[in-house]
């Protein structure tokens, strides 16, 4: 991918980001005023008004917007009401956790799905295929939060081999990763299996057989690379979703990631946090998309034409 192409995309993404942030600005403000949440119920009206003035919420929305836009341009995302700290600091603490969690779960899911999906496709119609099909459908259909709760019940509360929740060493990652793994895994197996079956029936695979290639070579050299594209696309989409946080799963496990931060931010009307998170997530998604495109081009030369 050429540099100018990258710049063009970046410019386009910046425009989209501006639109996104603007809509986010108005949307969060429409969710209501944080003042009541941040003052004791017994606080006086004067105190409430004072806080509104302090936060600039007394001014008309267009003025607030201009102010905010100015801050944004100087990359000032404001101070978190709840954390009493610069919002971007808080976001940047949470983001790596989420990214690590998503990356681990997705990588595992992708690798496992490619292997298992390929095996199923090679044995299409056989009992292995059917077993894989049922298993992956189940994995694709399981609500992640429920899986999390049941995992806690079984492994933490009953068997006591894993911690219930929290954040720390590798052992704390097992259950959250497992929960986030399930659905991508199920979906990807289905996709790999489908595109592998298609690839295995493609004429070029028949060519490879006619050339005398044995089944391992046919499957993993000729068919797989062609079958990978849809899986990469879906993984990219999933990665973009995960960048927004493992949402519910993070809540279940009290995992300090961006998803939990966002949900808390909205519950607590912490505008700065919400906006900073959206910004950070959008930037991450931009890079994920670039990465996916690069992967795409390296897998399929037909995509290289800009």
């Amino acid at each position, binding site marked *: 991918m050429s540099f100018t192409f990258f710049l063009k995309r970046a410019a386009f993404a910046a425009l989209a980001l501006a639109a996104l942030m603007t809509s986010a600005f108005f949307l969060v403000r429409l*969710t209501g005023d944080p003042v*009541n949440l941040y003052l*004791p119920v017994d*606080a006086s009206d004067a*105190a409430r008004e004072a806080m509104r003035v302090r936060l600039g919420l007394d001014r008309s929305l267009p003025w607030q917007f201009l102010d905010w836009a100015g801050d944004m341009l100087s990359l000032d995302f404001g101070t978190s009401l709840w954390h*009493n700290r610069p919002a971007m600091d808080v976001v940047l603490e949470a983001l790596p956790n989420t990214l690590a969690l998503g990356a681990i779960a997705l990588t595992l899911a992708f690798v496992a799905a490619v292997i298992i999906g390929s095996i199923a496709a090679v044995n299409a119609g056989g009992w292995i295929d059917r077993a894989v099909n049922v298993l992956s459908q189940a994995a694709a259909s399981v609500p992640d939060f429920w899986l999390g709760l049941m995992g806690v019940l079984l492994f933490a509360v009953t068997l006591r081999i894993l*911690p219930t*929740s929290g*954040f720390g060493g590798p052992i704390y990652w097992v259950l959250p990763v497992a929960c986030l793994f399930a659905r991508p895994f199920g979906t990807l197996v289905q996709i790999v299996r489908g595109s592998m079956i298609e690839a295995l029936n493609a004429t070029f695979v028949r060519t490879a057989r006619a050339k005398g290639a044995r089944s391992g070579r046919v499957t993993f050299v000729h068919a797989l690379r062609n079958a990978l594209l849809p899986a990469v696309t879906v993984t990219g989409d999933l990665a973009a979703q995960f960048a927004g946080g493992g949402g519910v799963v993070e809540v279940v496990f*009290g995992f300090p990631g961006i998803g939990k931060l966002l949900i808390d931010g909205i519950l607590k009307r912490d505008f700065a946090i919400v906006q900073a998170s959206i910004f950070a997530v959008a930037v991450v998604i931009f890079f994920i998309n670039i990465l996916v495109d690069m992967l795409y081009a390296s897998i399929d030369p037909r995509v290289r034409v800009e």
Partner: protein
Amino acid sequence: ADAASDTLTVVVTDEPKSLDPCDTDLSGNSRILHNNITEALVNLSPADGSLVPSLATGWRQVDELTWEFKLRDDVTFHDGKAFDASAVVAALKRAQDPALACEVGLATLKGVKFNAEVVNPTTLLIKTDIVEPILPNKMSAVDISSPATPNDGKSRSPAGTGPYKLAAWTPGQSVDLVAYDGYWGDRPAIKNATIIWRAESAVRAAMVATGEAQIAYEIAPQDGTTEQDHAFPNAETSLLRIDAEIPPLNDKRVREALNLAIDRDGLVGTIFHQDAQKAMQAVPPSVFGFNPDIPGWTYDPEKAKSLLAAAKADGVPVDKEIVIYGRIGIYPNSSESLEAIQAMLADAGFNARLEMLETSPWLKKLLKPWDKERQPSILQTQIDNTEGDAVFTLPNRFTTDGNQSTIADAKLDTLIADASKATGDERKKLFEEAFSYIAIDAVNIVPLFHMVTIARVAENVTYTPDVQAGNEIKLKSISYR
């Protein structure tokens, strides 16, 4: 945890919002700070609510508007600054600084101007602009932080005089405390304490079971059934606030019927913990001004029906839909309790609909101003009174000007105003009268229970939570067996 028996892990519901000593009105903050990191001039006795010395050794009322405090002289803050009268002056000033919007200033100290003067390093005068008969009680909520605490924003690294100092606050994960070597009082048995937070009661309970934590607070009743679970009254009273201005709820018979329709005995021991006390008024018995003579409501759906019928005969629109506004997670099982109550009201002939709200919209319903055209409603709420005096409960909720008050009754207004200014037995009598008036004449609440909190304590730890455990973890009183 057993290996490092000088370390204790406590699990609470939420991460503290700040660790600023002037925010100790938030229980999440004060649990970590109060009497662990920072201390106040006086403490309230958990037994009877009486005042006991803390950083102040003695106090007296000099005149109507002036109190004098004698301070300890052997105390230093965690940051090495000496504790003296000027530190108290600074802390009090900081707590009332409108720019900081301290919780203590906005709630406990609200409406009164406190001016402190240094007499000498161990003597302090506090003057008020109006009569403040319970000034020492209020001072029990004002934690004294080091004079070096910055004034331009809330602090995340408090320095106090308490037995523990802050070791680390890892946002999103934990707050770590370590025993302070220079503490003026007895050395605590536990050297290191870690406070972590989990939103789910079941998880918190499980963590003590699995050894991930030694103390877990706010266990839901269904989990709080083992030997390790201790229930303690937490100074909260749950109730339903009736919006008595909107028909049909403006008819007293209808409001009485609401009270009669609820089977409090059925709720206790199931949805509410069995140690919860049926309430007749808005404050628990430990509060100064509590009226023990108010009769409790008995469950009598038949009578409720007949009251409704009578009201209906007089043209009261009793069939109008009444909304029950609940708040998600206000206490354990809060929505179950309202589902049950809604069913009970329906059985008694009410047309009630339940609406569960998240905190922010719920606050909109709780606080004035309200829409003129609003639907008749009752609102789930709970009132806490840790300061131990009725004045912290009544004016805002039951006077015409109160920002959460659904009642506008001149007689009650004067009663409460007089009581607030009075002292001693007079004060007590007037407050009792006010509570009785609310419960029997005004009937604008459906009192439910004086609530309990359940804490789960690991078997190898000695700790018995008391009535103040909702707001403090007295770490220095805890030890391993």
